């Protein structure tokens, strides 16, 4: 028998009721987890540059050693059980949400290569019928030059995937997502 994935649909404007009102998760890494603790502030802007205040962001990341808390990661048994690697939050009136997490480590890739530290991110909102996938990298990390996914992105657009260090808050990183138009964020077909 053929099993074809069920079609996705929009979360609509009332997603909070089922997903984030009681079950948002902004502490991705509790303070005791090993690693460089950071605050990740994401902001979403629409085609008019207006903040998207009714979206949900989900993030998924490896720990400081590049391990995922998942049975398909060969090093899963070495993971700290306090670190899930997952976060989700609704955006506020400014189109923003914040996660307290750790800087992810380098993730192994085929043939002895590796992926630069990155966080996977998916966006859900009214007007989005199928979640939009992108990745957050960290501006200034020398590993970005060799990252096997970043090389697929035209050079002039790679900056849209870079979180930048917030000069006014030590340890905070800012990631802007422009859904459409000028400096449109790169989204991936996953």
């Amino acid at each position, binding site marked *: 028998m053929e*099993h*074809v*994935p*069920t*079609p*996705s*649909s*929009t*979360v*609509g404007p*009332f997603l*909070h*009721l*089922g*997903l984030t009102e*009681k*079950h948002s*998760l902004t502490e991705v890494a509790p303070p005791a987890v090993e690693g460089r603790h950071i605050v990740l502030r994401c902001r979403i802007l*629409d*085609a*008019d540059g207006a903040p998207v205040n*009714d979206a949900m962001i*989900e993030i*998924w990341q*490896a720990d400081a050693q590049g391990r*995922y808390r*998942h049975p*398909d*990661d060969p090093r899963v048994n070495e993971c700290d059980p306090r670190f*899930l*690697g*997952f976060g989700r939050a609704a955006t506020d009136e400014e189109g923003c949400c914040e996660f307290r997490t750790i800087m992810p480590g380098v*993730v*192994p*890739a*085929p043939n002895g290569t590796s*992926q630069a530290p990155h966080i*996977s991110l998916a966006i*859900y*909102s*009214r*007007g*989005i*019928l*199928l*979640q*939009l996938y992108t990745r957050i990298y960290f501006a200034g990390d020398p590993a970005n030059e060799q990252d*096997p*996914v970043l090389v*697929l*992105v035209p050079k002039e657009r790679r900056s849209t995937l870079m979180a930048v260090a917030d000069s006014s808050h030590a340890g905070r990183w800012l990631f802007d997502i422009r*859904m*459409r*138009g000028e400096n*449109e964020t*790169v*989204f*991936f*077909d*996953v």
Partner: protein
Amino acid sequence: MVDRNLKQDPQVPIYRRYLPGTQPTRIYDPYKSTSLRNPAQPLIYMPHTRSEITGPVYGHSEITETDSDLTRQHSGEPLGERIIVSGRVLDEGGRPVPNTLIEIWQANSAGRYRHGCDQHPAPLDPNFSGAGRTLTAHDGTYRFVTIKPGAYPWFNHHNAWRPAHIHFSVFGRAFLSRLITQMYFPGDPLFDYDPIFQSVPDERARQRMISSFDLTTTEPQWAVGYRFDIVLRGPEATPFEP
């Protein structure tokens, strides 16, 4: 755009790409806000890495008994038609997806959401919150008891009405198997006029969002059963070339 500079990692399971027409068209003009909230440039094709084929095992510690029975979350019973919604979560290989979180949310029987932004002048029900969650069993099955939601108007176009639906959020095994969808009820006359339902091009694929009446799960003198099976992206048994 297919760029194969990054080869499939032989150490990660292979997930198939969506078949054409089986998922909604991202920018679908009849659904107005899609053109403001989706990129103008094509998505960049990314071979799957360890980052996409892993995903969170989330929500397991927080489930209570009344979470899956939306008619028992308050002191009184909600108004409306009591229903049982059950089914199985499978992957593309037909394998059950056990122990995965399902979250639902919905309008009440009058078509009103308990949400500050819902402006529909229909009554709220003090005995109905409209949100639930459960984990699938070892064989991928799940079951909710709830109230059949009402249709409700929205502002997309003149005289726009959404067919009655329940929002479903399912995690599955990987970040790329994550699915948020809407479950509809059979025979709804609003299907033909709803751009959200119509945004899925393939007729057979659209049918996969519609539950079916199920006499075997209907409980005598109690509640009508609807069956809704969900298929998530899942690893291929054999290697697949995109």
